[in-house]
């Protein structure tokens, strides 16, 4: 279910008459007049609600003799709210694009010819430049402190601060053996 479909379904369900219709259809398939009789509302009003429910993908219809029967689309209601929340949305793509653009701007502003001009004061920006520097480290390899310092020094003279901040941000880790790049 896409984000748009989920919004349409939730909007559609926020009406007591439509919920009552769904409750009736959960018992058995019904036609308009039968629903109208059960719920005490007019047949045209039931048709109105059924159309909205149908557009939201909550009900489906089929012909049975002279009647148009309506039934619950059970698969829709078997979807958990968590599934809907976890569904990748168009907005997530747009947000990823905005993030990538912002990242590019920060990198362009703080790096010149591959060298870091200054350590950003904002943590969010510093995280981006640390992400760039950490790319120089291989995974599954232990580096000595000297090796780490040399790699960082290619970017910035104050390698101690960068090294410490990479540990603080969880990009690198260390123990008595040395330093290694943390898998994100």
């Amino acid at each position: 279910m896409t984000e748009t479909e989920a919004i349409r379904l939730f909007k559609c369900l926020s009406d007591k008459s439509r919920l009552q219709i769904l409750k009736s259809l959960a018992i058995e398939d019904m036609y308009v007049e039968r629903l109208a009789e059960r719920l005490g509302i007019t047949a045209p009003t039931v048709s109105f609600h059924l159309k909205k429910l149908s557009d939201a993908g909550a009900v489906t219809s089929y012909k049975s003799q002279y009647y148009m029967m309506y039934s619950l689309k059970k698969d829709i209601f078997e979807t958990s709210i968590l599934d809907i929340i976890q569904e990748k949305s168009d907005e997530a793509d747009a947000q990823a694009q905005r993030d990538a653009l912002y990242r590019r701007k920060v990198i362009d502003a703080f790096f010149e010819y591959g060298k870091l001009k200054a350590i950003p004061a904002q943590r969010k920006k510093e995280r981006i430049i640390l992400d760039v520097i950490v790319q120089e480290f291989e995974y599954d390899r232990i580096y000595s402190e000297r090796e780490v310092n040399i790699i960082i020094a290619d970017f910035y003279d104050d390698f101690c601060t960068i090294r410490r901040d990479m540990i603080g941000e969880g990009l690198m880790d260390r123990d008595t053996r040395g330093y290694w790049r943390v898998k994100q």
Partner: protein
Amino acid sequence: MIDQNMTKMNCWFEEKIALCGKRNLELNEDGRTDEAIFEKVKANIYDVFRTVLSVAGKTGNGDADAVKSFFTQRAEQIPAAWAAALEKAKEHNDTVRMRTEQIKLDTVHEIREEFAKIWEGAE
């Protein structure tokens, strides 16, 4: 007599509008939001024709037949667009639009009947 008819018709409009307002509140409180909107639609139609009656009264200038003629003419003209919209909605099987247009037309029908009742009752 014309003043009496105008007053009767205005009272009827006010009662109907008040009733729609009451139903709108009740339905909203009951979580039946779309049906609450139907009541608002009806109230708007009553209000439109209350205005038409007021204009008819001024235009007729005391002449009962002129008032009747003006009002019935407008009561035929105004809903013509709604009837056309209803037909279009039927063609496209747009049940949602059909419901709204039907409510408007049903309300006008009710207004026309009440108007005729009051005016003919006086004749």
